[in-house]
């Protein structure tokens, strides 16, 4: 125990951990958005079999706590000889979770866009893909926005789960330093502020985007405009 040091001196260590947290969140959100959009579009486009398979996967992934999923990636894959570093395993687990959650958001968003929009595009000679990409998905985005922002904020916070597995992200490093220096209050206050500094702008950005849509006569709620 060393009472002579301040949080300032711990800053480099803590920020390094925070960097890993942000990296994990960025990877999970970024890849999750890509896979989620693809899977959601696939669900909207797919036949009965595709839907059944995706529904099953969503049920499996979303039916258990995030912690359990991370456990599974950390302990089930190595059992089959597939080994990743702790950070990679965390990234995989979080991406998996984000992908299927975002898929559900995208699927819902697409279903809210009136079918007539797709038909109007097709009737002009758009291919299905082009119509999906330029006409349906951008409109789906407006109803998806609040959920997507929530999901983004949730993913930033959810990364803390992997501290349980020795991934040296923000929470893990902070806990280590608390145990070493016993500056529980100071370090936890710093942790609290740091998470807030990242999550608040995300929420604000989401609100700004909604205001922007309102300016075009579109709201984030279903059924806007004909």
């Amino acid at each position, binding site marked *: 125990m060393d009472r002579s040091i301040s949080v300032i001196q711990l800053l480099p260590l803590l920020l390094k951990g925070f960097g890993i947290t942000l990296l994990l969140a960025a990877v999970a959100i970024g890849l999750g958005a890509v896979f989620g959009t693809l899977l959601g579009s696939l669900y909207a486009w797919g036949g009965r079999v595709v839907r059944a398979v995706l529904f099953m996967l969503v049920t499996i992934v979303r039916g258990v706590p995030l912690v359990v999923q991370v456990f599974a990636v950390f302990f089930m894959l190595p059992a089959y000889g597939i080994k990743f570093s702790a950070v990679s395993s965390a990234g995989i687990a979080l991406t998996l979770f984000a992908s299927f959650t975002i898929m559900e958001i995208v699927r819902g968003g697409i279903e809210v866009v009136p079918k007539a929009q797709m038909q109007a*595009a097709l009737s002009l*000679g758009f*291919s299905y893909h082009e119509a999906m990409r330029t006409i349906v998905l951008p409109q789906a985005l407006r109803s998806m926005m609040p959920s997507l922002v929530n999901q983004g904020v949730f993913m930033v916070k959810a990364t803390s789960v992997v501290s349980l597995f020795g991934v040296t992200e923000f929470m893990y490093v902070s806990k280590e330093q608390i145990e070493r220096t016993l500056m529980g209050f100071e370090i936890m206050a710093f942790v609290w502020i740091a998470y807030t500094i990242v999550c608040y702008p995300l929420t604000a950005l989401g609100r700004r985007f909604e205001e922007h849509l309102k300016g075009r006569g579109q709201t984030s709620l279903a059924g806007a405009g004909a």
Partner: protein
Amino acid sequence: MIEITALKKSYDARTIIDGITLSVPKGTVCGVLGPSGSGKSTLLRCVNFLEPYEGGEIRVDGELVGYELDNGRRALKPRREIARMRSECCMVFQQFNLFSHMAALDNVAIALVKVRGLKAPEAREKAEALLAKVGLSNRKDAYPAFLSGGEQQRVAIARALAMQPKVLLLDEVTSALDPERAAEVLDVIATLGREGMTMMMVTHQVHFAREVCRHMVFLDEGRIVEDGGPDMLARPKTQRLRSFLRHLRLA
């Protein structure tokens, strides 16, 4: 320009179109009348191939719509071919169906970019000209939610015209509009008719139809009950059309 022969279409066991034969020569306007559920809209949607059909054939400019014949057997055309044919006989819908996330100008320009492969500035230039044609130059930056119904429908017509279609299919384009807004849209259509655009028009606007349509058909239960020239509505031959017109006047 449009040749429909013995067309048949059903949903499950329900027959929607039951052997329609109809010809729309180049440069003419064909009016399609009939009660709800008589198959009018479905007929137009088949021509654009938004709906597949099981029997008979539809030809636009001599080309079979939606299918190709392979040793006498019918098979779906490749998707790209179907899309190309759709872009050549564009449809205007009762509910406008403008792309709600795009301003009027982009609604008209987008298909020029995505379907015809034009560069954006060139597409916008053409779109501006088309908006001018339907009298909406001053509204080009407005989003659909801020346009009146009549304005939306005129944008929708400009959007279809952008593809320079061989045929324009109009599906009750004024039914969702009040009489004044409807008149704006009908003016545009009458002009197109004078310019020699080939059109098939489902409508309940009897007076307008008499002015614009060279040829008219009256559908009921998926069949053509009566067809003729503009005077068909003044002197209906069948009891079915007479009673339909009587109800229309009372409404």
